[in-house]
């Protein structure tokens, strides 16, 4: 089936929905999502959205910008960080105007709390910058944006899975998608396409990410010659529920929770004297690993304790009720009374599809845009998070850059004509689906995925070293070979989730390869990328962004400079 829209957005999380709202009446818009929009992973975000409102204490957007740049270990493009910090304030007010039920201060203003890496006066101490709604800020943001889309009659194609982008003569012409209900392949002609498909945490065994997060957008972009930027920078959030990876928000520490080792010691005092438990996530994750390696994990095992019991029952029930519910449900632990067992969990992709500050996708080191192709949210790399993302900055990223992408798309579609579709435009997508459905393969996609997740977690995790990363690259390539022989039991057309999981596995394998190759090449430690064989940050050789291309001869790497405006790189200590 064939559709024509001025703009098509893939992904109905925070960035996709915000862009859809911005497009407004500029033209016809369709939002495609492989899940019902309210199921998007934005809804799982807990801690808050960072903006320098200054409701509880003095705060300036310039401090937020600095914290973002330093938090990203100076790999952040500072022009992007400036926009993020500056526009954060108005986008948060806008969300509130749309009805977001923020928690409130006694005088009725949006309540804010401290969060990892957010400081006043350029690093002097923690500042209350995270605007929150209990511990379900993401849920409220997603719901509020979807409500506004309902109000504005935005057209949705729910449970449509993107298969391919369509490009002809260097211009975007649309995309193909698989309708999950019927198995039918749809072609969408469009002047502009926005990918807002979220993260790719399902490359790893222990992750906070939903099953749906398989990096669809970046993987498809890669297949069209678009490089992926900074893929080696993957954040491991320090506090996932042991073994399950379910996130326990940084807000627990924002409210006063502390991390303890076997000896009951608040070990973050040693690793980060100023910010302690509110140090940025990469620093805390490494600290936890080092404590575990030194034998100071709880009962000598691979986790530490997050203790919020001193906060008292009332604070726990008011401020972190969802967390308390998870702990009770999955661990039988009541955070008001006992500590929570936590360990690092694969959480966020700082890297992704390279874009400029208006969401336009860039093809090379010269920042040449591909007209009509946009990306926003976690799947994009502006780069506003650099080598490590601060908590609360993802929710801001979604609304600030989602809005900007929507705005530029609105401008673009009014100035551009449709490009004609390539002949046989459904070819690539159909061929892939056919091969999986009716090919003679017998490999199990689930087994391949399991092995992928294990090797990535073990070898390309918090601490990395050359031999291990190389082993991961080799293993991923073996798995890609086996993937060509995947067979399915479900050969039907109706709601064939086995087929979709196999397609998603293909994406994960490609992204894993790019991640591991990029990590192997970067011989320094910066932000979340930590090399045991190269433990120092090396600005002289490595203050640059990685661009990884997929070619017929494997992954090719190029580099481009970082935009540095206000803050010269300094050693990153807290």
């Amino acid at each position: 089936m064939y559709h024509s829209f001025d703009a098509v957005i893939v992904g109905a999380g925070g960035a996709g929905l915000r862009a859809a709202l911005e497009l407004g009446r500029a033209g016809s818009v369709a939002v495609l999502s492989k899940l019902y929009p309210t199921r998007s992973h934005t809804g799982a975000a807990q801690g808050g959205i960072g903006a320098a409102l200054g409701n509880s204490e003095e705060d300036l957007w310039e401090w937020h910008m600095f914290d973002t740049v330093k938090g990203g270990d100076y790999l952040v493009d500072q022009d992007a960080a400036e926009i993020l910090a500056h526009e954060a304030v108005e986008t948060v007010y806008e969300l509130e105007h749309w009805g977001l039920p923020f928690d409130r201060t006694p005088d009725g203003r949006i309540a804010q709390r401290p969060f990892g890496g957010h400081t006043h006066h350029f690093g002097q101490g923690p500042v209350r910058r995270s605007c929150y709604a209990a511990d379900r800020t993401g849920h409220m943001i997603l719901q509020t944006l979807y409500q506004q889309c309902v109000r504005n009659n935005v057209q949705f194609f729910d449970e449509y899975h993107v298969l391919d982008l369509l490009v002809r003569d260097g211009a975007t012409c649309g995309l193909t998608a698989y309708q999950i209900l019927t198995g039918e392949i749809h072609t969408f002609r469009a002047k502009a396409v926005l990918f807002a498909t979220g993260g790719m945490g399902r490359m790893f065994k222990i992750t906070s990410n939903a099953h749906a997060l398989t990096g669809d957008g970046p993987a498809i972009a890669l297949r069209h010659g678009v490089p992926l930027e900074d893929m080696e920078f993957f954040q491991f959030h320090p506090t996932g529920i042991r073994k399950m990876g379910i996130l326990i928000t940084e807000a627990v520490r924002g409210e006063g929770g502390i991390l303890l080792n076997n000896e009951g010691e608040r070990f973050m005092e040693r690793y980060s004297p100023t910010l302690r438990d509110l140090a940025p996530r990469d620093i805390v994750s490494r600290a936890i690993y080092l404590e575990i390696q030194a034998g100071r994990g709880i009962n000598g095992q691979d986790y530490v304790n997050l203790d919020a019991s001193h906060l008292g029952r009332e604070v726990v029930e008011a401020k972190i009720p969802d967390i308390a519910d998870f702990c009770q449900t999955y661990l039988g632990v009541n955070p008001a009374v006992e500590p929570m067992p936590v360990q690092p969990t694969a959480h966020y992709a700082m890297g992704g599809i390279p874009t400029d500050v208006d969401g336009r996708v860039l093809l090379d080191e010269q920042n040449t845009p591909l007209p009509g192709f946009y990306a926003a949210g976690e799947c994009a790399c502006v780069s506003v998070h650099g080598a490590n993302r601060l908590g609360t900055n993802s929710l801001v990223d979604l609304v600030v850059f989602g809005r900007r992408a929507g705005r530029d798309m609105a401008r673009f579609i009014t100035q551009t004509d449709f490009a004609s579709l390539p002949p046989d435009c459904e070819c690539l997508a159909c061929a892939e689906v056919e091969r999986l459905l009716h090919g003679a393969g017998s490999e199990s996609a689930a087994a391949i995925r399991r092995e992928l997740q294990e090797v990535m977690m073990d070898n390309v995790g918090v601490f990395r070293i050359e031999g291990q990363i190389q082993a991961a690259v080799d293993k991923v390539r073996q798995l890609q070979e086996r993937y060509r022989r995947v067979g399915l039991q479900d050969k039907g057309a109706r709601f064939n989730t086995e087929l979709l999981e196999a397609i998603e596995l293909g994406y994960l394998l490609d992204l894993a390869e790019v991640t591991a190759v990029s990590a192997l090449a970067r011989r320094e430690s910066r932000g979340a990328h930590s090399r045991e064989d190269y433990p120092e940050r090396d600005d002289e050789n490595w203050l640059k962004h990685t661009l990884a291309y997929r070619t017929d001869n494997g992954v090719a790497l190029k580099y481009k400079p970082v935009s540095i405006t206000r803050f010269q790189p300094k050693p990153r200590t807290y």
Partner: protein
Amino acid sequence: MQVTLKIQRFNPQVDARPYWKEYTVEVDPSDRLLDALHQVKWVQDGTLAFRRSCAHGICGSDAMTINNVNRLACKVLMAGLGPKVTVEPLRGFPIVKDLVVDMEPFFDKYRSIKPYLINYDPPPPVERYQDPKDRARIDDTTRCILCGACTGSCPSFWGNREYVGPAAIVQAHRFIFDSRDQGANERLEILNDRNGVWRCRTIFNCVGACPREIDVTRAIGEVKKLLLFNRMV
């Protein structure tokens, strides 16, 4: 431990009617039912269809009927289920395939009650102020994740699919009682219908089903009371 899952299967394109299929899985007591379903799908029978995403009770994808109670598959631990577990799709919704139901009617009803803030005044340059007490008033109903467990557990809904359902009323309540909203009367108008709030017979199944522990029946009752005694100005 070994557990037998008795799962309702049905592919309307192929099967004449739903049927049961049993699978035996090896699980830990702390595994979620979702983990057991994945084991079936990934190891034994790839044709089994079910929705899921976040796997920790926030996205609302995997609401289903487990041992006759509506739950989220990712929030139920195997420890509490016993050696034989019955798994069925939510009742009252057309079955798409196996445990996947057609959620379109459910979302249509949600959309019908104007589930967005209505305020006709121009917004201030900063946030609208809201007293913490007013914020607390809507804390319960803002927790709804639209999973469908409540509506799917409601005998009034089973008896009449036109009933707008508990979830839609909860979502309306969330705005009606939001001190910043001015659209209460518009929504009350919509709900003041035999298929609106008045279909509710105060059965309380919804309260038992809600994975977010929202006091659904109370919320419905409060809307009824408004309609009976005191329209908001």
